[in-house]
């Protein structure tokens, strides 16, 4: 076979693989949304679940998902950004910096179920929180911490050094330069990172089984973070794997579609302002 023919065949093959990947994704989306959306009624989205009868909703679970999300972001973003600032600006070539870097890498490789067990040991057991939304949020925060650190470090590194130098040359302190110049300039990339970890927080289940628990509070909405709080993804797993109610499959499908839609909306809601911000920062190019 001549090299030309091989080249053409190869090109065809690569196009095919690209298309196959898109098709798999499309099929997924269509399947999930197609089977789940019919079950999405007002009652389903906001109603209370049933233990034994059919017709339950996922209102409390949906609420808990967002509650956990927000709490975990409140914990992971400040710590992650500060650690990222340390690594990109203050870190010098010493053992401590190496230690921190290896720690971030190691933390990012920990499987989620190990986080779950750790969260149980630390928050539920040692700190006596039992199953709680707070414990769950804190553990999810641990999961997202390394991503936030890495995203912050990269975001700050891509800000041109000249901004930093200009600020210092005008007599600012380092903290002022960070707060007023670097962080705002790094904001679009930071937001992208936050979207990433928010998606993970919404979809996380293995961690929350052991920290936030498998049942929901009796009244809704319950803002007490010390109460047990099953989230939507945990509920999806529970209903899908251990079907107790007769319409378990429908609930699972509906929950899956709902989860997906929430993640998608979140992505879009954050991506659009981020793009606008980016355009404004780069002078509208």
């Amino acid at each position, binding site marked *: 076979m001549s090299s030309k023919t091989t080249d053409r065949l190869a090109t065809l093959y690569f196009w095919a693989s*690209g298309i196959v990947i898109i098709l798999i994704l499309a099929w997924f989306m269509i399947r999930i949304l197609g089977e789940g959306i019919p079950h999405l009624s007002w009652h389903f989205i906001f109603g209370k679940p049933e233990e034994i009868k059919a017709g339950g909703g996922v209102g409390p679970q949906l609420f808990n998902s967002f509650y956990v999300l927000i709490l975990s972001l409140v914990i992971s973003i400040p710590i992650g950004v500060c650690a990222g600032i340390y690594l990109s600006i203050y870190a010098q070539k010493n053992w401590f910096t190496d230690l921190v870097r290896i720690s*971030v890498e190691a933390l990012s490789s920990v499987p989620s179920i190990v986080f779950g067990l750790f969260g149980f040991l630390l928050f539920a057991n040692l700190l006596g929180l039992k199953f709680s939304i707070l414990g769950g949020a804190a553990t999810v925060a641990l999961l997202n911490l390394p991503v936030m650190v890495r995203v912050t470090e990269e975001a700050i590194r891509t800000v041109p050094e000249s901004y930093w130098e200009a600020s210092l040359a005008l007599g600012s302190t380092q903290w002022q330069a960070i707060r007023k110049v670097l962080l705002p300039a790094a904001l679009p990339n930071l937001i992208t990172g936050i979207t990433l970890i928010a998606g993970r927080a919404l979809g996380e289940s293995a961690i929350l089984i052991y920290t936030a628990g498998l049942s929901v509070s009796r009244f809704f909405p319950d803002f007490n973070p010390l109460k047990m709080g099953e989230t939507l993804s945990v509920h999806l797993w529970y209903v899908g794997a251990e079907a107790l109610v007769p319409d378990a499959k429908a609930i699972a499908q509906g929950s899956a579609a709902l989860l997906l839609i929430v993640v998608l909306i979140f992505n879009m809601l954050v991506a659009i302002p981020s793009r606008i911000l980016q355009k404004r920062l780069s002078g509208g190019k």
Partner: protein
Amino acid sequence: MRWVFVGSAALVSAIIFSIIVFVGMQGLKTFQGVSPLEFFFSTDWTPGQQKFGAFPFLYSTLMLTLVAVVLSVPLALSGAMFMAKIAPKWMREILRPATDLFVGIPSVVYGLIGLTVIVPALGKLTGGIGYGILPAAIILAIMILPTILSISEDAIRSLPVRLEEASLALGATRWQTMWRVLLPAARPGILTAIILGMGRAIGETMAVFMVIGNSPQMPKSLLDSTTVLTTAIVKDMGNTSYGSTWNNALYMMALLLLIISLVLILVIRIVAKRSEVK
């Protein structure tokens, strides 16, 4: 202000250490109730009779990861090469967000698809019930595809242009250039991608749980119900009481998962160091 930053960085280190210590200590308590030999090599897992042979879980974890990687890598690498060198701009604009979207789908949703579509399909195809390593591997392959693809793509893209130029200037076709020059040159980055994909596959719990069958036995085929390390923990945790050997054994499995992940990170660092300096 500076100390806030240093403190945050130190906190990160403290966290990973406490994880290793907490999980490790709890897990090592297992050996108060069962010998390491039995734990690692016995295939009999009957906690009711104080039998804690975790070998089936280790074996199935290995099998599952291997099959998932074998299924995923060819398509992922092809996609990576496509996106890095062949796809026109408009195609990349579609594929990039598409692979990002893949990553955003929660694992339980993957599990549900596995449960409602792949398991029944395999069941019809083979006449069995359809659970086992195979459906789990298929789902995992799709889950780790975006990881392997995007890191490999970055590796290929970051190769210096002059390598490609040199090859083309000698009269090579695009395929010859990719196969003989670019892929070998990007090998460290691609290896890293595959190892990271492996790490994800080993640590995945929920999706696997829904399709693998969950009986604690050695699988006799790819379509035989079995359990892996992650699902063993999820399945039994609720039935055990804190402090019992059974419970500790689950922590031991978590420790094993942790160690495997850390070893993989180490391997990646070694691969990165040994790659040729350009």
